[in-house]
């Protein structure tokens, strides 16, 4: 399932990476501890987090995530957005809690398996 479809179904707000919406979303990972995300997430995952500082862009870039979903209407910091635009990393914002958005993304991806 591509990122654009996930965005539409979950009503996510796009803050960066508008040109990367055809990226295939292969899975997801929820976590706020960066070492945990570095060790355990995979290429093509949608990373669900409430960390908004600029270092999330390096993590998403290194792991080749499909994008980052910020929960509970958290907005990326100004320098985060600048880095994300520069690196081409989609940052999306959901009004839902981490629990809800993770469950919905999980179910969405399961349906398309």
């Amino acid at each position, binding site marked *: 399932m591509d990122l654009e479809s996930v965005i539409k179904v979950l009503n996510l707000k796009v803050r960066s990476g508008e040109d990367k919406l055809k990226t295939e979303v292969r899975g997801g990972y929820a976590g706020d501890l960066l*070492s945990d995300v570095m060790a355990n997430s995979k*290429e093509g995952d949608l990373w669900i987090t409430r960390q908004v500082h600029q270092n999330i862009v390096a993590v998403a870039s*290194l792991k080749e995530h499909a994008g980052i979903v910020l929960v509970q209407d958290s907005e990326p910091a100004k320098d985060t957005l600048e880095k994300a635009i520069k690196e081409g990393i989609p940052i999306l914002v959901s009004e839902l809690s981490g629990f809800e958005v993770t469950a919905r993304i999980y179910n969405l991806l399961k349906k398309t398996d």
Partner: protein
Amino acid sequence: MDEKPLFDGSFSVVGGGNYDNAGEVSTSIKTILKKMGLPGDVVRKVALVSYEAEINIVSYARKGMIRLRVVSDRIMIEAIDEGQGIPDIELAMQPGWSTANQKTREMGFGAGMGLCNIKSFSDTFHISSEVGKGTHLKIIINTNSSSLQ
């Protein structure tokens, strides 16, 4: 190491808890390895190991350096820093053990997984440290030699 390296370069890392550019060295290293055509799983391991080494320097040292050397059958990463050093390496290697301050933890760093992750993803891992001077990591990740021909 007698063989002429395919790549040999060093990257400086700013420490002192300044996270502004944290991750840039490991991103550069990843880009270099991808351009060299190394297999994805090797690039991922090196990216993770470099990242954790870089973040440790940023978080806990005054400054440091990461050296990357690539030869036909392996990649060597050395991280050398000037800083507080590690009083008890065995303790520092325990998952979850961290001396990170509040600010560091709030950002999601300092979970106490860095050194364990480096060790798990390396084929050879060596750490030495001197309190008041700094820490030295030597990491080797083996590659499939056929991928570099």
